[in-house]
């Protein structure tokens, strides 16, 4: 087989293919000029009096003015959530809570195209992904957890579940609406009220979501959305009126939060960084594996905590895999996130682009060999061409640190034992991928990989019924499935 692959002339690479632009219309979304804080069911001006501009990272175009919440604003939001918790939400029968959450799921689907366009505009991700992944899975998450709301006593044998109170939730910019759903759906299903802070750079779908809450008739104060930068998050973490912090973001900030809440009795779940190994054995279905590698690292520009950012290839097929990978990379279309043909969109912010650039530079300096696809990047906005590094040593920063960009580091191995050793050789433990047609080997590997999610012959799959979360410094607690309820309950 391997010889055949080598002698057969390569399939023509459609590099020169012309694609007519296929832009998704922006008309479906109308942003307000200015968004206040969503507290107690209405938009209010921030007590801080501060505002900032949120932009489209693909064009640097201004989209809307956003409120910067400070201590006083956080305090108001927490108060509002507390009132809503005490005055009804926690005492509402689970079956009634369920119906509100079912409504949210339905409305999100009804307005799915609007949310997809807004998400791609504000985050830079391709419309194909926001339309086919982010928004439908967000809606599915609400639908899934809605069903749990009146069945909690069946979830944990011999334990009596109670809501915690007010959940403070801080989410990142890579999947703004999806992460909102991962946080809010289980919290509400368990009878909590929430104060959620979307990322500084991607507040718009969370703010549009406040209109879904209005349409669903959700009681005021059950969901509060406050916007701002790290100072807002820090004020939430310190606020004594919050019973639980749920954070998704970098490992550095996660550690700060864990330190800050030490001794306060606040509950905590952390979903942090990753440096997943995608492990390719010589008996894999090669073309499927190459698709999996591409999906693993270039999905959402690689701005994914569980991205397959370290490719471990068995030595015997190394040349073949790299050749196929480069060929496939060169067919990726980088550009306008709203174009339906786009595979790789814009990097979310200048700050993130700088971080990627800096780490890629370190890879060159440490001696790795770089390959980037030849694509024309737009003049405005934040862009980074799909990149792969070969000749990478385990000690290189690009093999140890989370890059959070479209940058793949390739290492090799000879035996399954060596693959396990290298895959586990990081402080992280969020996800891993294994490609082999040998069933027993998949299970053998899955047993030994110290990671919360293992994808066998697939990668980057998500589902509300499937628990997600990390080992080691990738955090603790699970989101999704029955396990995801536990983060929002206390037991007698």
């Amino acid at each position, binding site marked *: 087989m391997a010889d055949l692959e080598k002698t057969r002339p390569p399939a023509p690479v459609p590099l020169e293919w012309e694609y007519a632009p296929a832009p998704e219309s922006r008309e479906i979304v109308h942003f307000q000029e200015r968004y206040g804080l969503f507290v107690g069911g209405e938009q209010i001006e921030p007590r801080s009096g501060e505002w900032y501009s949120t932009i489209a990272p693909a064009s640097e175009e201004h989209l809307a003015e956003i409120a910067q919440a400070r201590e006083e604003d956080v305090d108001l939001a927490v108060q509002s959530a507390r009132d809503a918790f005490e005055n009804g939400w926690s005492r509402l029968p689970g079956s009634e809570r369920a119906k509100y959450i079912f409504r949210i799921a339905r409305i999100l689907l009804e307005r799915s195209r609007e949310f997809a366009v807004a998400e791609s505009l504000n985050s830079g991700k391709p419309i194909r992904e926001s339309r086919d992944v982010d928004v439908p899975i967000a809606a599915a998450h609400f639908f899934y957890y809605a069903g749990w709301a009146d069945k909690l006593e069946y979830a944990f044998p011999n334990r009596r579940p109670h809501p915690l109170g007010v959940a403070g939730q801080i989410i990142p910019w890579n999947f703004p609406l999806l992460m909102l759903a991962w946080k809010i759906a289980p919290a509400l299903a368990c009878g909590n009220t929430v104060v959620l802070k979307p990322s500084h750079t991607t507040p718009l779908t969370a703010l549009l979501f406040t209109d879904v809450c209005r349409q669903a008739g959700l009681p005021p104060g059950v969901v509060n959305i406050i916007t701002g930068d790290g100072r807002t998050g820090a004020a939430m973490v310190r606020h004594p009126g919050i019973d639980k912090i749920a954070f998704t973001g970098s490992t550095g900030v996660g*550690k700060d939060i864990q330190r800050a809440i*030490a001794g306060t009795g606040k509950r905590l779940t952390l979903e942090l960084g990753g440096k997943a190994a995608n492990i390719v054995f010589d008996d894999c279905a090669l073309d499927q594996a190459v698709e999996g590698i591409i999906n693993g690292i270039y999905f959402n520009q690689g701005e994914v905590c569980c991205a397959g950012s370290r490719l471990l290839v068995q030595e015997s097929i190394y040349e073949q895999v790299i050749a196929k990978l480069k060929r496939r990379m060169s067919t990726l279309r980088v550009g306008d996130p709203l174009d339906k043909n786009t595979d790789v969109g814009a990097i979310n912010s200048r700050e993130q682009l700088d971080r990627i650039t800096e780490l890629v530079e370190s890879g060159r300096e440490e001696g790795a060999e770089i390959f980037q696809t030849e694509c024309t990047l737009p003049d405005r906005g934040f862009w980074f061409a799909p990149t792969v590094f070969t000749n990478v040593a385990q000690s290189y920063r690009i093999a140890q640190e989370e890059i959070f960009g479209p940058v793949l580091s390739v290492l090799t191995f000879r035996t399954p034992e060596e693959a396990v050793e290298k895959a586990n050789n990081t402080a992280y433990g969020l996800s891993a991928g294994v490609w082999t047609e040998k069933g027993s080997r998949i299970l053998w590997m899955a047993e030994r990989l110290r990671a919360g*999610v293992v994808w066998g012959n697939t990668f980057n799959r998500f*589902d509300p019924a499937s*628990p997600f979360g990390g080992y080691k410094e990738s955090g603790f607690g699970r989101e999704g499935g029955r*396990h995801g309820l536990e983060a929002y309950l206390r037991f007698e």
Partner: protein
Amino acid sequence: MSGRLPVRKTYKLFIGGAFPRSESGRTLEAEGQNVARASRKDARDAVKAARGAFPKWSAATAYNRGQVLYRLAEMMEARSADLAATCSGEAEVEAAIDRVVWYAGWTDKLPQVLGGSNPVAGPYFNFTVPEPTGVVAIVAPDEPALLGLVTRVAPALAGGNAVVVVASETHPLAAIELAEAIATSDLPGGALNILTGQRAELAPVLAAHMDVNAIDVTGAGEGATELERLAAENVKRVVRGPADGQSPWEIQALLEFKTVWHPIGT
């Protein structure tokens, strides 16, 4: 001056299946005995021993782990008179033994109660299994001397973790007596390590140790906040629970959940 002079016991540490003195050469007097006063170096050695034992203990079959824990109960039963002398008495020893038996029976039921298959919306088989967190540090409560220790340690071992215990500072003898039962129980050397000495000296070393994955601060009292803060350095799981009580959720607190996906197709 008639009769025979008894041979006294030297109370030592339990690290890697052996009974060393503290490398520091120090002891402290507790419960009328000189007890080894472990140093920070001893704590680090204990973590190393635990890490070394983790692959073997965690990879043992659930059936085997259950048998080993049951064997521990057998060994405790045989030493019940000695154990009773280190705690409040026979009733506490019996409760401790029964607790070990109870947890022994959990090892091969956990994945079915805590894990399962997940109905994802697509052609994938998806399942979730519990796995041990790794190396776990436990700051044992002072009371009840034996039962408190067993209550915290048994669920950690049942889950497949390797453990380093900081024994009660005021009642360390129960821990050492228990170590002697463990040494003959087929538990792999290093899967449980016991340090006696000063809690304030030892617990922070374990809380800050980068190769410890979780810390149980049940016995730490007011020192718990500082331990929690130190634990953040490598995102340790921080656990606390009752000094007397039993539940599979105590095991779960020191488990990770792994979810595996695979496509379904022809």
